[in-house]
């Protein structure tokens, strides 16, 4: 079995993995990083979105072996010293989650969006989130949260 090294939320791991092991199963089942959930089989829902070397990817559609040598950030790695990331705070303040199952992926996708567009308008936010499905909120509050999170990220990122 291939041996891979991967850094997840700042911690280095070395694992032997089956080639077919999905990155999301490496995170959840092997490493116990269950903050990242799985919502579909077809890259549609985006619940499993993580940052891989700084860019958003759907961890259900990346093999663990493809992530060899890379740095992964999940929703569990966003807070620093117990201080929420501005995007996490914005989701809380704007009531941008209900059941919360899509939230890890949604927050990661939002942070990725702000990486490339620090001051997105509503249309840009909606485009940036088209790969992340939410069944609870109707997206209005998510759009508001991303706008707010983007503003706060401009000021202050942990």
């Amino acid at each position, binding site marked *: 079995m291939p041996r891979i090294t991967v850094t997840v939320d700042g911690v280095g791991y070395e694992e032997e993995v089956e080639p077919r092991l999905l990155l999301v*199963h490496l995170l959840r089942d092997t490493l116990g990083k269950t903050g990242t959930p799985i919502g579909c089989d077809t890259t549609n829902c985006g619940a499993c979105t993580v940052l891989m070397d700084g860019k958003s990817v759907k961890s259900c559609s990346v093999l663990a072996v493809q992530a060899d040598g890379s740095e992964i950030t999940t929703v569990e790695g966003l807070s620093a010293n117990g201080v929420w990331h501005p995007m996490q705070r914005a989701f809380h303040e704007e009531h941008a989650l209900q059941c919360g199952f899509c939230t890890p992926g949604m927050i990661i996708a939002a942070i990725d969006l702000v990486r490339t567009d620090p001051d997105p308008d509503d249309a840009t936010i909606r485009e940036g989130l088209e790969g992340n499905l939410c069944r609870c909120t109707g997206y209005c509050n998510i759009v508001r949260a991303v706008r707010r999170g983007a503003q706060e990220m401009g000021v202050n990122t942990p």
Partner: protein
Amino acid sequence: MTEQLTREPATGEVGRARRRKEDARLITGRTQWTDNIHLPGMLHVAFLRSPMAHAKILRVDTSAARGLPGVVAVYSGEDFAAEQGSLPCAWPVSDDCVIPEHPPMAVSRVRYPGEAVACVVATDRYRAADALEAIEVDYEPLPAVLDMTGALTDAAPKVHESGNKAFTWKFAGGDIDAALQDAPVVVERTYVQQRLIPSAMEPRAVVATTDGDSFTLYSATQIPHILRVMAALTTGIPEHKLRVIAPDVGGGFGSKLQVTAEEILALLITRRLGRPVKWTESRSEGNLTVHHGRDQLQRITVAADRDGRLRGLKVDLLADMGAYLMLVTPGVPVLGAFMYNAIYKMDAYDFTCTGVFTTKMPTDAYRGAGRPEATFAIERIMDELAAELGLDPLDLRRRNWIAHEEFPYTTIAGLTYDSGNYEAATAKAMELFGYEELRAEQAARREAGDPVQLGIGVSTYTEMCGLAPSRVLGALAYSAGGWEHASVRMLPTGAVEVVTGTSPHGQGHVTSWSQIVADALGVPFEAVTVLHGDTAVSHKGMDTYGSRSLVVGGVAVLRACEKVKEKARRLAAHMLEAAAEDIEFDAGSFRVKGTSAAKSIQELAFAAFAAHNLPDGFEPRLDADATFDPENFSYPHGTHLCAVEVDTETGMSKIRSYVAVDDVGNVVNPLIVEGQVHGGLAQGIAQALYEEAVYDGEGNLLTTTMADYLLPTALDLPDFITDRTETPATTNPLGVKGVGEAGTIASTPAVVNAIVDALRPYGVTDVRMPCTPERVWRAIHGSSS
């Protein structure tokens, strides 16, 4: 929009836009979804599912699978036949209702694609999936039964030996023949409520474990309490030996209001193997086998006078049950029966529903459960009647709705609406929407022959929710009641522990209940914790569905608080050496009237705990249990207005603006209420425009993935404009009505009415849902596909 958030600030906790206590773990990934649970020695289950809609099972050969690496056990339906029982239906709606045996794992026959025929238990999910492919099953195909009308003919192949009719349920109010006879205007339509897949974001998951005597079942369920009763009855595990836990649950919308085959089989497997087992659904498995919603064929006839006054309404409904009756399958159309007459006065109403078996996934509750279907049909046909009479759709509604001074009002369907103000909600919605301006723009576009036409859709809905009243549910042949339970306990330090029988999965009960308790006991919002979703902690309850949690469960919390307060008053009187009736309560303090002598509720909590100086007979605790069972449903209502631009060249419909003014009575947390409305709108709009579960001619489900079953993204929905009127319910002390389903119930007809309104100049009188561009285009061009 956030109008309501900037209104006059609430003086207490109730009414404040409190940010949710639930969020912290959800936004940081410290969640406990069922699939996150890992127990020592845990095995993974994978199910082999029927690729056929309808077939005899001739042979299941599991031998090759048994020898594969990591495989611990392989079972077929025969292995469970003696112990698996039948999945329950708790709502035999009529005397003639046929409830067929529903084995959790098929033994000799499959009746829908996706029905479980075998399973593998293995050391991990990868090996379990591999071994499924080594199981051989021989089927003898039987004809699929797909079309409800055809299924009821004598020549139709039978889904069950008893035939394809599940039940007939009738209701009559007034003299329908008299109302229809010689009516100046009669409009008759047939509407199709397409089949929907609820699509909660969290797929189902189950973990079952046993210590050899007692069992624990973790499940992504809305109904841990009902599940415990039903699973005990089905498996024979004594109820007191079965604990059910709903950990974090990622949405339900009715789809997790079920007792599923996988839950029962997980218990049976752990009972056999003595090891913990987990099953987690894949999305494509879920699209096949999570119960579906809607799927009704509605023939509706309305009779009116020339001035638009309604005389009578006749509804003839076929409801697709799918292959079996599950927990409340037959009850869904029956719940709708009371809603067709909606907010309108009329002389007569006649309703007939026939439940039909087909070889499809069973249907059951999906957000609104019966009321969205009813509301759609009446609100659609009101627009058709308005067009027939040349009236503005809102004008026609005004001529027929119950005036606000007429409440309480007993409808032709026999319900008593306690309160409402349709005039106020409509006036507010029209103003926010710019109704007259949009009508002017519509006229201009029509005049100019603009290829992009504008349509305006109206929905003046009400609904019955807050399920509850146990007596009424009993009269409708539902097997259980609808009360709700709560415990409120003052802890020695002055913190408050609340136990609720509701089972939230996104609704924010922890936050809202904390607000109620904070006001009732005069304690800080932060000092309240709410426990739920575990039958060992919350020992009784009726769970969460039907927009009932606040209206029934929230009121139970309030009642328990009142009891705690009375105990505290007695203790305060004792400690302050005053008469109980001389103690007044304000903001957490019990004070002797006209003096400064007082005890805080926190002091009293500690005094009760210490028990050094209690009144005679006073138990050393400051806590109480309460249940609430209202005598009536509650009736949220509102006016939704939708403007749609229809590109007549391509058939594409785009929502330009959507205004929802809802009256859900008093509001505990406006932020949560707005969120519920938003989400409800999204699902109702999605039924109108995007979603449909499609089976092909052989009975195979084509929409098994999210690539085929289209859910709206952020780009496909507009920014909603929401506001409220507040007409308190008179049937509960909080004056609340429930908000979980209102948006879904109201929005579907608003959108379709708007599309049809845009296309009236083209002679279009209906577009089948979902209103795909192709269907709209064909409607314009008069061709069908």
